[in-house]
């Protein structure tokens, strides 16, 4: 199988990830639960993982790194901390349902969409500038669209939020491990990411970087302050009720080490080259519409396209039958399709990882020409 669905989950992982998970199953219980080796090894692994993540994303302390079960989990914590009934929230035009559904679930939230055309960073920044009025309580912005791969001007949006005193939640689901992310410089309240995409960890892992006081989504045992009934007021314990996913965390640690050893910049360059090669060739195929910039300056290795007179799911199925895994439909982001004008059709999406090659692009193009 040729796998081009890494914006959903990177399927090919470094071998060290699998090995670490198997080792964790054999040697680790849960951090902080005892003075015996299985608990101590788990504690050491969890701390190593927090420390690596803190260094990669410039968090001041490993305690700001909270393990979640995925990005949706982290977004729910961040959103339900900052957004209350009646709040006014500004979001980008490219948000995922992981942002818009939690907002819809909170009564009487007023949402202003700072919509901007694909790949136009200056227009995106202007849209946020206009939308962040004095009564705005929170801004939520994804760094990269999961549908189109377009990069939003995060530094500018963060500076705007800082200057107007509005807390910012960043959805880094598509950018973590690919683009530089600096919690200290951005001064975002929360940055949220999955472990199973660009960080090459296993499914069931996610990370919430906290730079703001936070309300737990879930209460329970933490192995600390056990005689009191309130959740601890310190991180990460405040947000990590229950037994940790140690095989997941051990795998995530190796995934993060893989990313740091190659560097996000090198991985991003590789994925961009693949996307560019695919986009250039696809433009020469009659009936194909590709959503890409000529130089992919404001785009990463995520590429949507349409085939004239073909349902996107039919295209996805034809590619799957030919051994190529892609994602078709709305990608859980109807707002992004509304913004880009593809809400009626959806798109077919290619998304690449460090493990894809130009030979795989050639094979894909061959197959696409026959559809």
């Amino acid at each position, binding site marked *: 199988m040729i796998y081009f669905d890494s914006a959903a989950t990177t399927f090919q992982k470094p071998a060290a990830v699998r090995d670490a998970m198997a080792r964790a199953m054999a040697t680790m219980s849960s*951090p*902080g639960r*005892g*003075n015996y080796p299985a608990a*101590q090894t788990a*504690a*050491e692994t*969890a*701390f190593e993982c*927090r420390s690596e993540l803190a260094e990669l994303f410039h968090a001041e*302390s*490993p*305690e700001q790194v909270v393990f979640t079960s995925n990005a949706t989990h982290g977004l729910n914590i961040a959103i339900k901390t900052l957004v209350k009934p009646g709040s006014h929230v500004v979001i980008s035009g490219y948000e995922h349902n992981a942002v818009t559904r939690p907002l819809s679930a909170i009564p009487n939230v007023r949402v202003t969409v700072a919509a901007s055309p694909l790949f136009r960073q200056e227009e995106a920044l202007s849209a946020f500038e206009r939308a962040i009025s004095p009564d705005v309580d929170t801004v939520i912005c994804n760094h990269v669209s999961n549908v189109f791969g377009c990069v939003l001007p995060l530094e500018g949006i963060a500076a705007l939020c800082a200057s107007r005193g509005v807390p910012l939640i960043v959805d880094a689901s598509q950018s973590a491990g690919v683009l530089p992310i600096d919690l200290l410089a951005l001064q975002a309240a929360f940055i949220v990411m999955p472990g199973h995409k660009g960080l090459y960890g296993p499914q069931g892992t996610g990370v919430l970087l906290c730079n703001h006081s936070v309300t737990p989504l879930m209460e329970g045992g*933490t*192995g*600390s*302050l*056990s*005689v*009191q009934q309130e959740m*601890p007021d*310190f*991180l*990460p*314990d405040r947000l990590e009720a229950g037994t940790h996913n140690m095989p997941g965390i051990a795998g995530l640690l190796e995934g993060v080490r893989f990313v740091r050893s190659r560097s996000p910049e090198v991985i991003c360059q590789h994925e961009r080259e693949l996307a560019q090669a695919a986009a250039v060739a696809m433009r020469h195929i009659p009936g194909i519409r590709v959503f890409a910039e000529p130089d992919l300056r404001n785009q990463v290795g995520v590429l949507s396209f349409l085939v004239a007179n073909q349902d996107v799911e039919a295209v996805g199925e034809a590619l799957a039958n030919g051994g190529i895994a892609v994602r078709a439909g709305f990608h859980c982001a109807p707002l992004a399709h509304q913004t880009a004008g593809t809400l009626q059709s959806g798109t077919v999406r290619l998304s690449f990882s460090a493990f894809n090659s130009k030979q795989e692009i050639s094979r894909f193009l061959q197959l696409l020409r026959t559809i």
Partner: protein
Amino acid sequence: MEYYLIIARSITYAQRMSRVLERIGIRAQIFRAPVGLTDRGCSYALRLRTEHLASALRALHEAGLNPIQVFLFQQGDYHELEPR
């Protein structure tokens, strides 16, 4: 045998303390603190040799990592040190 116990608010905090001490050449084992020492329920502690206390506390203070409590283990019993 005499030693000091530094109580930390969480295992992650204790691990941060341990890393700071490692950097100045002090090895301090992390373990769950005896239940009778705190009224907070489960806590974590670092065990220090007596000659390391002053330099350890200085390094932790400089790193912004402050212990909740410090105890001296002496003649089979724990004695809490007055906060300084």
